């Protein structure tokens, strides 16, 4: 896997973890944040797959 794809995947993974934190950690309780960063995580995953397939 190329560095390009790996780095895009890394962005997706970190954002997914953050989205989960925003959704599940009671102290944060920010569903709006979870939605945006979760959508972003999915988007960057899609971009990584697009790049991988070329």
């Amino acid at each position, binding site marked *: 896997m190329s560095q390009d794809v790996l*780095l895009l995947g890394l962005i997706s993974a970190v954002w997914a973890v953050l989205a989960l934190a925003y959704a599940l950690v009671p102290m*944060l309780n920010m569903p709006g944040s979870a939605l945006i960063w979760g959508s972003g995580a999915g*988007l960057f995953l899609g971009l990584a797959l697009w790049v991988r397939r*070329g």
Partner: protein
Amino acid sequence: MTPNTHSSLSDSLAALAPGDRRLIRSLFIAALAALALGLLLGLWVALARAGWARPDLPETGYRLLTLHGVAVFFDWLTLAQAGLLLVLAAQERKAPLSLAWMGWAGLVVMLVAFVLHLLGTVWGNPLLYDGSPELVAEASQGALLFYSGYGALALGLVLLALPGLATLVKARKAGSGSWSALGFGAFAWAGLLLVSAIALANTFLPAILWAAGWGGMPADHATLWHLLFHNMHYLPLLGTMLAWYLLLPELTGARSIFGSGFSKLVFCLYLVFVPPTSLYHMFLEPGLDPMVLVLGSLLSLFIGVPTIAAFLVVMTSLEAHGRARGARGGLGWLKALDWSQTATHSLAAAVINLALGGVLAFVLIQEKLAGLLSDTFFVPGYFHFMTLGVVTLSLLTVAERIAPALGGRGGSVAWARYLPWLITLGLFLFGVAGVVAGSQGMPRRVLDASYEGLAPTSWVLLSWIIGIGALLMALGLGLMVARIGAAYLGFGPKALAAEQPQAALEELALKQGAWGASLAVALLLTLITAATWGAFALMRSLPVIAIGGAGH
């Protein structure tokens, strides 16, 4: 030896289809028009605050402030960034754009968005650019138009980002199977553009439905706005870094001596750190857990890591190349730059403004200072350094540089070199007076900060200085926009063929003691420390003790 194999920007743009060049040219013309409008409105607001221009009705003043924010922060930045993205894609692809029709559709949708914003602002209550539904009252038709403007903007962002993404994917496939650092950065940045479109929809779709009578009042508009705003102001900062990466080889021949892999990692880290830093916009919101405040401050520092890294990569490379080409002394590499070019002056001014804005930014992210500085004029005092002094100057430099290659003109004129410094002088007056006034509590988003004589007298004096600064900024920026706009419309002197600067020997560059950028960062950190200390000292000098009460 590593000769400069980088094809010039002009060559890359020449490889585009004529329609592609027309698209990019149209995007920049529309962007410049939005900037010119926003600039005039912003100037009027600053003069109103100084007491030199007062509207007959307060609504009129706030309508103009609303349109200033929309025209500059959303329209100018979006259109100019869309243009930059296509330029970056062209540089990577060196062939016609993919899905160019989407770019045209995006431009049309952006114009529709502007008209909707304009009509909504004129017909509805002035909502400022965050469009709080609480202020809509009975004027929901105007609000519907205003919110629909943001809906169109979201669609426009998607349409404008997709041609860039598709072209970059093709470029990668057609090339060696990997991007250059700039190509990767542009692709990731375009991804953030799409996320910003999601954030726009997330914030304003509920408001559109509500204003249309199809849904309840948006429950959490303020928080959603913070998220959108967070995205929208980090987006152009990454774009600015990419613009610098694009322009420096063109202007100096210098390329990164740190390798593309390292630069890609820096761009990636920038995106990684955007989401966790969003908390600092909410420090003043009631009901936040105290630990969230602490966490927000701590995490916010991380966005500085890739920003400083990108700065060091660019500036150290520049200095190392300069020294490798024979520059001597502490500042010899700076003197050796081509100061006959307006672009060199613009980027130098942008670097200085980045330092000034950066110092203030890191004061604002300290949660304990939020109650002293947030919602005051400290905020516009700081962010104009960034949005105008850094981002806008950099985007204008790209626009100016590519105008001849897009069929426009854009020949060099000596007086234009002074404009970035005039803008910076105006910004300095505006920003420093604004920061001082904000530290004293002068609020932002008011037309009359004198409070009928009840406010400290210093606020009036500082508002005058802010007004003078705004005048100088507007003069410099207005002349710059007029000059570049004229070039895009085919007026002005013809440009001479750009001479490709020579690259230095990379092996030689790597051995140079290029400490200038590192010392600048050390100075910056010292200034941030001093500014933070000063803010705490001010806070503790106040004859009041306030502590958050026990939340339930």
